[in-house]
């Protein structure tokens, strides 16, 4: 078992990387860290090899340089919710593949088997420091967290169920935008989710939108920007048009820090930045402040 783990050690890739130092191109593996099937991994920021266990214990932050590892949905859930409190909803919905897009189902199947997710968002119910809440977490390792009909439906149902149950919603956003493979049907998900948010809000319930790296496109232009309170992780990229598209359009380089979470706070679109270690505390504070009680305390 241990031996196997060492077999695919990343020290080997470190060696390779060194040979290639002339080409500081993006190392594909470093961006896509899958937790926790290796013993070690490399920090894409400081290039140090670090113990996976240390990273997980440190809220998925590099113990050496403080870099925020990309957090996939399952890891985010286990970091944020009270242990054992998560109840998952609406799994195994299937898209109708409206464009009959070649290879789309196959691609979905493949991504599903690699990520242990059925779609780019997990939804359900949990408690956070005892406060009962509905929760959704998007995952960038599933087709860039893009929103097709299933993602839109899961998020809509999340808000509808929360409205029925009189519960708040916390949604960790992370997405490249609408899913191209489903064409205009993907676009319609923006309207569908936004109107469900509206009904939830009209019922007097709290919605906290938590923006993580990256949140762009149709997700930014719908539910991500509709929270009563909008929080963001440090340095998360948040925007409507992606930076590459803007650079191509205006034919100039964007300034450092453009469209980062701090930039959005400065321009008035995000309430505050919350560090990973403070997420549970901040969420519990906001839930309490909106008048929700701890489970069992009513």
């Amino acid at each position, binding site marked *: 078992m241990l031996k196997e783990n060492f077999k695919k050690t990343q020290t080997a890739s470190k060696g390779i990387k060194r040979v290639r130092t002339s080409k500081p191109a993006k190392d594909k593996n470093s961006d896509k860290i899958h937790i926790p099937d290796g013993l070690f991994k490399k920090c894409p920021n400081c290039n140090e090899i670090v113990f996976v266990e240390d990273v997980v214990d440190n809220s998925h932050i590099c113990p050496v340089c403080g870099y925020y590892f990309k957090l996939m949905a399952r890891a985010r859930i286990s970091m944020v919710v009270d242990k054992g409190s998560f109840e998952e909803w609406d799994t195994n919905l299937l898209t109708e593949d*409206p464009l009959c897009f070649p290879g789309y189902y196959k691609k979905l199947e493949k991504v599903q088997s690699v990520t242990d997710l059925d779609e780019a968002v997990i939804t359900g119910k949990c408690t956070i420091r005892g406060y009962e809440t509905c929760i959704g977490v998007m995952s960038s390792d599933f087709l860039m967290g893009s929103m097709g009909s299933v993602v839109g439906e899961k998020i809509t149902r999340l808000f509808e169920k929360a409205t029925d149950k009189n519960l708040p919603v916390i949604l960790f956003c992370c997405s490249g935008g609408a899913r191209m493979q489903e064409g*205009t049907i993907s676009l319609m998900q923006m309207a569908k989710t936004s109107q469900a948010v509206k009904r939830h809000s009209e019922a007097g319930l709290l919605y906290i939108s938590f923006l993580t790296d990256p949140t762009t496109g149709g997700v930014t232009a719908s539910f991500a920007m509709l929270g009563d309170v909008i929080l963001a992780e440090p340095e998360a990229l948040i925007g409507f048009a992606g930076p590459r598209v*803007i650079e191509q359009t205006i034919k100039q380089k964007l300034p450092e820090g453009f469209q980062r979470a701090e930039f959005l706070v400065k321009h008035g*679109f995000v309430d505050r930045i919350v560090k990973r270690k403070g997420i549970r505390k901040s969420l519990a504070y906001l839930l309490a402040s909106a008048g929700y009680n701890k489970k069992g305390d009513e």
Partner: protein
Amino acid sequence: MAGKSQKESVADELFNVEFVDRDELTPWDRVLLARDKERPYALDYINGIFDEFMELHGDRAFGDDGAIVGGIASIDGKYVTVIGQQKGRSIKQNIKRNFGMPSPEGYRKAIRLMKQAEKFHRPIICFVDTPGAFCGMEAEERGQGQAIANNLYEMSSLETPVLSIVIGEGGSGGALAMAVANEVWMLENSMYSVLSPEGFASILWKDGDRTAQAAEMMKCTSKELEKLQIVDKVIDEPKPADVKDMESLNFVLKQEIINFLKRYEKITPKQAAEERYERFRRF
């Protein structure tokens, strides 16, 4: 009125043979027609269809966006609020109209006028024609995503009937932000899609030139979207809409709009909001 352009318009090119079968147009032909310079823009329809129109300006926060025009119009003895995405034909006009690509203040003006319409019980009619929301630094700084999101959010519960007509290009979220309507119609040679065929091709094949193939695959034409029930009605264009000759098209649109208003007189404002919710819930 637009003068005769030196270059032949797309419509002229496609239709220089006298009897072209409209069904033989490829999706890409239709995309080109939707973008044609000789195609009527929002104000051309507004001036042609409505008896009167008073334009109102500004978002009450930052500025007035020329890419979106809006105001109060009258038709068949009734007042309605009309909002349209407006392109320009000359360079000077296009600077003012920003090629029909709205900025956040444009969307905020639109929702301001819609809320005003709701307050005074006026139905809302939107003309959609945009390559997409403006993609630039200023737009991001002023919250393009938030502005669009807020339109979707507020439009979903407006207690007044809303009709959106895609007259040219329906580009992505920038178009949807004016198309959360009780009924969405498309002119036959317009398009409505999640991204441009160019963008689609460059993401899919890393080749921005395979646009015709992309258009084929994307199902972005009026007839295909009617089949997917994204669109409720397709307004026929016996010959492609042309700003120099819009009388018959305006006549048809006027009748259709009057019928729409009559249909919605029978239901309460609350029902109109409920019906709109259900319309988008089913996707």
